[in-house]
């Protein structure tokens, strides 16, 4: 196994860092949620990459096909659940952003800080 052979993992790490960076560096709450999404999606890709077996096919039993190499289906199933969790988190996060916008009139973190300081 070489570094180049692991390229997918490097891509996943890069995506993960992009997500974390957006999450930390952006003041806009909606962009923060987008960063969080990227972060979660990178983990989903990680599981799918782990499951891949070189030359493997779909894990379906075919009569008379003999022994076939197939990719591990379990991580895919796990990720279906993780996607549901991710969608729910996005929904709750965006819902909170809507409520924040209604209460403060802004979704920019620095603006919100200023409003909170002005209002003891």
């Amino acid at each position, binding site marked *: 196994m070489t570094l180049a052979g692991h390229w997918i993992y490097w891509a996943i790490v890069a995506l993960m860092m992009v997500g974390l960076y957006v*999450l930390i560096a952006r003041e806009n709450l909606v962009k923060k949620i987008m960063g969080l999404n990227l*972060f979660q999606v990178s983990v989903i890709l990680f599981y799918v990459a*782990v499951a891949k077996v070189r030359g493997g096919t779909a894990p379906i039993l075919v009569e008379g096909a003999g022994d076939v190499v197939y990719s591990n289906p379990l991580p895919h199933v796990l990720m279906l659940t993780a996607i549901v*969790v991710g969608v*729910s*988190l996005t929904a709750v996060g965006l819902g909170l952003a809507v409520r*924040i916008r209604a209460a403060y009139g802004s979704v920019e973190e620095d603006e919100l800080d200023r409003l909170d300081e002005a209002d003891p």
Partner: protein
Amino acid sequence: MSEHLPVLQVVIPLLCAPLALLVRREAAVRTLAFAAAAASFAISVALLVSVLADGPISYPLGGWYPPLGIEYRVDTLSAFVLCVVSGVAAVLLPLGPGRGGHGLPSGRLHWFYAALLLAQAGLLGVTITGDLFNVFVFLEISSLASYVLVGLGSDRRALRAAFTYLVMGTIGGTFVLIGIGFAYQMTGTLNLDDLAQRLPEVRHKSTMLAAFAFLSVGVSLKLAVFPLHQWLPNAYAYAPPVVSAFLAATATKVAYYLLARLVFTVFGVAYVFGELGLGWLLFPLSLAAIFAGALAAIRQTDVKKLLAYSSVSQIGYLTLGLSFASLSGLTGGLVHLFNHALTKGGLFLAVACVVARSGSSRLDDWRGIGRRMPWTMAAFVAGGLGLIGVPGTAGFVSKWYLVQAALEAGRAELALGILASSLLAVVYVWRVVETAYFRDPGGPETRAEAPLSLLGPTWVLIGASLYFGVFTEWSAGVASKAAAMLLGVGP
């Protein structure tokens, strides 16, 4: 029927949550929530009794046997934590959001019950399951419900606190997911016991180190271990008081359970404390949490925020007990989980009582409240003494074990640290007591006690914390059995 108790433990609150949304009428929803919480408490007590008598219970979900199927596993430790979570929920759920302190219009209260039941189901699920991925799912169910509950506070800052909690909690949850991925990649199993058996073969691989790092940091974020506690003070301070009581008493406690489970059952003491030397990291962090939390609590001008920072400090005691990795240390940590759940739950409920009457948790507005609400403040004082660890309260029992563990480990400086931090707790509790009893409110003094529906549950929790300060068979006794099981000494 009785063999299905482990799954009913989780399924009852999980199904009652959507049912609450269908029923809608507040009186009916309240009854439903109480029935669900009471049933789930009864089940957890039955499980604890059965585990203590006959040993661990393994329940194959849907008839698929472990390690392939999902297993619910109840042993002394998980039954103990189940009792804490479902017991506190049984006291708190019938209350609903309480009066005041929340931004819910009447007629929408069924949403509150649904979220609280979901949070409870998630926390019970994390505790009972023996499957690593199931842990993640339940952790996220409880966290999602908690974000919603925190956002219901009456102050608009509650929304921002909930958002921060959501971001930090999701990073924690995703870290846990990455850790699970690494562990699965190396061992090919998700069952906790199976994982523990297969780990020794791959233990030296750096992937396992990464798995442990992601899992422990992720869980520590949910547990609010110093310095990952930034989300906690605002979340507890701006959430509706009843929600603060629920989260303080259960959410961090379950995260602590999970950390102990991962460290002791899955990865093993020899690896975590021997090879990795986690103790060297956890000791200073625990002490920093204890002191930084207490010092911050002293400076607060809002009682809820004061209690929230006090929670940061108390979580330090929990992790301190864990980092000794000895029988008395772990017993101290686990019994503190139990005692602090009762004490802090009761204290936040006392705040809920005051908020229901005067609408404010600001210390300035608490002047002379000791004479207006004598029973509420008596509960607060009793709870405050528990935080300090005065003999006769539950807090004393946990500190006794922790000091004993420090002396056994030959680290007298830690024992002194525990005692010194208790003095800081005296300072912050005294600030509230002084304001409530000795400051002049500057207005007419009329007795206006909180409604019995709030005062009753407050005294149930505070009374329990006093009871377990004297009779420790079911708190320290069970905790020490659970600690012995985790460390692999004795049954």
